[in-house]
């Protein structure tokens, strides 16, 4: 990849995506490299055990190792150190940094202060581009990435995985349907990008009408914190929950995805169906992150550079 940092899915061209996915497929098939000297810095300013473990595993499978700043409570951040200072210090130890932060734009800011590659592992409601790459990997394996119809449902306003994915899909021949309550529609900046990209996009408040057309249904969680009133939340969340019966109306080859963790937006009886792909999707995080690290880390660990 020609980028020094991975901050936003917006920066990924179709060619970039394909290069990462192809490399990921090689790792998936058992390819190994020896990056024994490489050290990845894990800076998680908010807890995300799953994403952190996925990066940790990926780096160790490449033969390298990780250093972890630990929890915010135990670090100097608690004492009021700026993000700019923290990343400059850790960049002195590590060959690349992975950053998860509660504020939008944090990874962008971090990248301006260090010489090592920065990978955004989620910044507030902003972007989560490595999730997007593993989502794309999963979609490619199950439905292909061209001439398909994808439905994205749930919290489209705050869901950063949605923002990253919607943008990345515009690089491919994909019809996008967005299904959400009125109050959780896509934010202005995401619509702007979709519009600029000339994307084929429709918005709906109900899944029913569009479900039979979909090759992929990407479900996200609607968080209770987004609603001041518990009742309002229950009413809204209930309408965007799917179970095996809902999916009777779907095509046989529908792929159901979810970035996980789920709460109750996908009923357990869906797990038993052929549609369920979310656990495979989570597994794909490791080969995809191996590919990305191997391509972004300096040096001669692989042929991806």
């Amino acid at each position, binding site marked *: 990849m020609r980028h020094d940092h991975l901050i936003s899915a917006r920066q990924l061209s179709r060619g970039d995506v394909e290069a990462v996915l192809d490399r990921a497929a090689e790792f998936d098939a058992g390819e190994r490299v020896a990056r024994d000297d490489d050290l990845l810095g894990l800076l998680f300013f908010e807890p995300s055990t799953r994403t952190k473990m996925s990066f940790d595993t990926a780096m160790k499978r490449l033969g390298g190792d990780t250093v972890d700043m630990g929890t915010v409570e135990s670090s100097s951040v608690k004492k009021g150190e700026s993000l*700019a200072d923290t990343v400059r210090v850790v960049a002195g130890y590590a060959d690349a940094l992975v950053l998860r932060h509660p504020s939008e734009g*944090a990874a962008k800011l971090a990248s301006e202060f260090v010489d090592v590659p920065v990978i955004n592992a989620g910044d507030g409601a902003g972007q989560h581009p490595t999730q997007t790459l593993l989502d794309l990997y999963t979609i490619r394996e199950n439905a292909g990435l061209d001439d398909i119809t994808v439905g994205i449902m749930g919290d489209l306003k705050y869901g950063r995985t949605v923002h990253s994915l919607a943008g990345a899909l515009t690089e491919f021949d994909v019809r996008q349907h967005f299904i959400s309550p009125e109050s959780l529609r896509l934010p202005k900046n995401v619509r702007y990008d979709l519009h600029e990209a000339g994307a084929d996009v429709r918005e709906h408040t109900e899944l029913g009408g569009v479900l039979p057309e979909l090759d992929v249904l990407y479900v996200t969680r609607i968080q209770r914190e987004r609603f001041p009133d518990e009742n309002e939340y229950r009413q809204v969340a209930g309408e965007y929950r799917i179970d095996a019966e809902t999916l009777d109306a779907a095509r046989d080859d529908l792929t159901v995805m979810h970035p996980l963790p789920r709460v109750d937006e996908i009923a357990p009886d869906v797990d038993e169906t052929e549609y369920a792909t979310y656990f495979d999707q989570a597994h794909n995080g490791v080969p995809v992150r191996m590919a990305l690290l191997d391509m972004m880390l300096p040096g001669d660990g692989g042929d991806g550079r």
Partner: protein
Amino acid sequence: MSDSNQELRVSKIKNGTVIDHIAAGQALNVLAILGIDGSGGEEISVGMNVPSDRLGRKDIVKVEGRELSPAEVDVLSLIAPAASINIVREYDVVEKSRVTRPEVVTGILSCPNANCISTEGEPVESRFDVLDDAVRCGYCDTILREDLAEHIATD
């Protein structure tokens, strides 16, 4: 011709800047975006909603004793894209220019997203990419289209 006649309603200045062809209703925002409120001792005349050949109606601002810098003029373009700038010395216009839209404005606007890293005391200036009809935060991607003047950073 009618243009210059109308301008007579606003007093001539000796030394300073005349910002002409501001879209009607934007004069006060222009002053706000430039941080000009008279507290620096400048004499300011404002003509609002005056007839204009080019714009139908326009606003005009004259600032005595202050010459705008190119950077200030750039920022002005965000809310007054058709404006022209006349630098006046001894009652004569010595420089006449149109505003041009910069690609980026730095340190002028503050991001309206309360969760944006650029608002959190980090050692960086705010940075906005200029789009066709809006600006976009270089950190969090938030798009700001209306009421730009309300988001002028105050120190």
